[in-house]
């Protein structure tokens, strides 16, 4: 893991606070650049956390001294960051959480119970001093989810895992550990959907390393495999969990969820609570309103095809794009994003979070808790 770079880049960012130049405009700080550096330097970091880290770096770099000024600087940079990526929703989860936290501390609403409220400056200091801790906590959350979810994988069960979710991978590895501790070997099988994301291959390798029997299947074989392998449950990760408990995740999640519903297979989602975002998509067609820019459906007649060059659709999911290894990292880089779809909450059995296993309906309570 190239974690050295990230600490370097982060230490560099807050430095200006020590000798604040009052005339230096805050706009010299490139939030998008910072975000991308953070994301590429640590393969384990998720998008919301990277967005939070970028904002913390901004907090260190900004010469703003008053509370309201700081908040407004954060706000403008957050929207700048969101507008710079094709799918801003995962980032929005992070930036919204961060801004809300800052605002809460401003209002002194952190003083519930016997604890006195930290002032704005103290909050700021706390955030600057602990930016690394937050990333570690996010990783710890993944581990906690894995521990919880591992209990679901029982003796003799067949589990379908989809997508290059690191959380699901950890979950299955923990389940293998638990089985090994109890019976001496992993007594479950995994059907792994190879959807082309770069985390698939290492995940399968890691599972096989632990002695888990893994079948790799293509996305087109999902329905067949669910029935033929008698899959007991499906685990997926997600980019974000939306307000109603639905998912906004890599293209194909909706498809798998629909298949699972149809075939009566429980569909479990492993997601950290910081992936919950205050966005409410009404349907697939509503995604552009939520800020997702993608051109999955590109209707063309014969004439259009002759006019255009074939490589002129970087956002499409057409075959040639999937073959291109770079596009698979699009989820993380800025350029082309991996397309996403919306999975309605009715298709989700439960969401496994580090704070317990939740029904989709409980997601709203968590949001309500911090936004009221």
């Amino acid at each position: 893991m190239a974690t050295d770079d990230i600490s370097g880049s982060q230490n560099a960012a807050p430095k200006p606070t020590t000798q604040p130049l009052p005339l230096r405009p805050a706009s010299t700080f490139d939030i998008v650049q910072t975000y991308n550096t953070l994301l590429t330097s640590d393969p384990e970091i998720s998008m919301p956390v990277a967005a939070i880290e970028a904002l913390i770096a901004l907090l260190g770099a900004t010469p703003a001294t008053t509370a309201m000024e700081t908040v407004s600087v954060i706000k403008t940079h957050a929207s700048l960051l969101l507008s710079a990526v094709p799918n801003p929703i995962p980032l929005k989860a992070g930036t919204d959480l961060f801004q809300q936290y800052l605002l809460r501390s401003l209002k002194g609403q952190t003083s519930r119970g016997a604890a006195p409220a930290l002032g704005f400056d103290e909050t700021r200091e706390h955030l600057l001093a602990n930016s690394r801790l937050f990333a570690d906590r996010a990783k710890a959350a993944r581990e906690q989810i894995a521990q919880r979810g591992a209990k679901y994988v029982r003796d003799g069960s067949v589990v379908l895992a989809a997508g290059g979710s690191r959380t699901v991978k950890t979950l299955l590895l923990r389940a293998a550990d638990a089985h090994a501790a109890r019976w001496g070997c992993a007594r479950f099988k995994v059907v792994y959907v190879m959807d082309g994301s770069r985390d698939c291959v290492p995940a399968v390798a890691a599972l096989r390393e632990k002695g888990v029997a893994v079948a790799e299947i293509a996305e087109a074989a999902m329905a067949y495999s669910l029935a033929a392998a008698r899959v007991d449950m499906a685990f997926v990760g997600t980019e974000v969990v939306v307000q109603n408990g639905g998912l906004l995740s890599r293209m194909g999640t909706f498809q798998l969820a629909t298949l699972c519903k149809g075939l009566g297979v429980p569909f479990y989602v492993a997601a950290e609570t910081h992936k919950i975002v205050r966005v409410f998509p009404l349907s697939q067609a509503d995604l552009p309103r939520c800020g997702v820019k993608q051109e999955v459906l590109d209707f063309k007649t014969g004439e259009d095809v002759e006019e255009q060059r074939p490589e002129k659709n970087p956002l499409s999911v057409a075959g040639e794009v999937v073959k291109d290894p770079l596009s698979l990292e699009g989820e993380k880089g800025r350029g082309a994003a991996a397309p996403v779809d919306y999975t309605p909450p009715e298709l989700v059995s439960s969401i496994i979070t580090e704070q317990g296993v939740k029904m989709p309906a409980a997601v709203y309570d968590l949001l309500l808790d911090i936004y009221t």
Partner: protein
Amino acid sequence: MAPVQAGYAPTLETFLKSLKGQPLESSIERLVYLLKRRQIKGAEQCATATARILLQVVAKSRWNDVDQLLVNVQQHGATLTRAAPRELVISNIVRRVLGLIRDEAIEDRNAAGDEYGVDSVSDMGALATPPEQPTSRPGPTPIKPGLATHQSFISKSMFNLLSAVHPADSTGTGTPVTGASTPVMQATSSATALRSEVIDGIEEIVDELSQADDQIAGFAEVQIHPGDYILAYQPSPTVEKFLVRAASKRHFTLLIASGPPQRGAPEATYAPLKKKLNAAGVKTIHIMAGSFAAYMPRVSKVVMGASAVLANGAIVTDGGSAVVARAAHEFSKPVIVLSGVYKLCPENSSEVEDPVELGDSSGYVSFADGPLVNGVEVENTVSELVPPELIDMYITNLGPHTRDHLDDILADHYKVEDIDFPLQ
């Protein structure tokens, strides 16, 4: 439902009577045997027995501070859970008692330990304590969760990621260990106060157990309307009470469905229930041998009891219920589950080891059919799992709930630290 105990076979009543004079260890041992022999069985009985024995643990076992008490309760609770792993209620009651102790201890410390200044962590991110605190965590109680002085409460908030105080003990064992427990100085003085408070709390739980059925019955007249056809599958005492209460106000028809007739075994007639309902002017129809599907078009509601309600809304109940629920679902008839809050488990249906219990099948095949007994395996489900999508409403002693609301009830009744209880 339970066959009459012949002679001097011990029952819940004799056990409860015997509690007083006996030392703690021997009564626990006795309860373990009773549970193993199924002389105490069923959710209500197990819950009552557990609550009573935990009361003895609090009263009689040796403890000086809260952590010790928690460990005592956990250990004895785990013994009982192992004795009857299918009775999920036992761990529920243990969790309730553990939560109770934690609550009382927090109250005590808030009252007495103000010199700390930083006592309980609010769920709002809690910026009170300096950030170096989480790292210096010695953790002398690595397995059993103790009660932390500084973090008396694991918050459930999305702010946990950013909060100054570590929301839960980070990675580790997966069990949310609350961390280092610093012994409190005013231990002995508060121990007696705590003891009596916790005992009062357990008494309240026992009261709740005994009143749950009546409280559930209180919602009967709202749910059952005049002219309804109510189908009840093998009505449990809870369901019977509910129906009898409804009969006092409402004029409806009850269809009692019972499982397939068993050879040799006396047919369950539900005579007392029928008599009571008849007295109130409610007609009962007994449907035999699984022909309830034929009546389903007429039925307006299906009522069933449960021995446990799981976090995702699935219920564990008598064998044969799932097919009734399925039939009702196919005919779009609402299925109502009656269950006390104490039967609501924080586990999901996928986490419960083996909800389907296979039992005595001699009612279906007798040994007179020698070749048949040799040649085939006859299985009879005693309890089974009804999936959540077949159930429309849950009526607890708190009132009617939808499936989505179960999460809230769980959060109100159990502490996050205790949810993983039997695994610790």
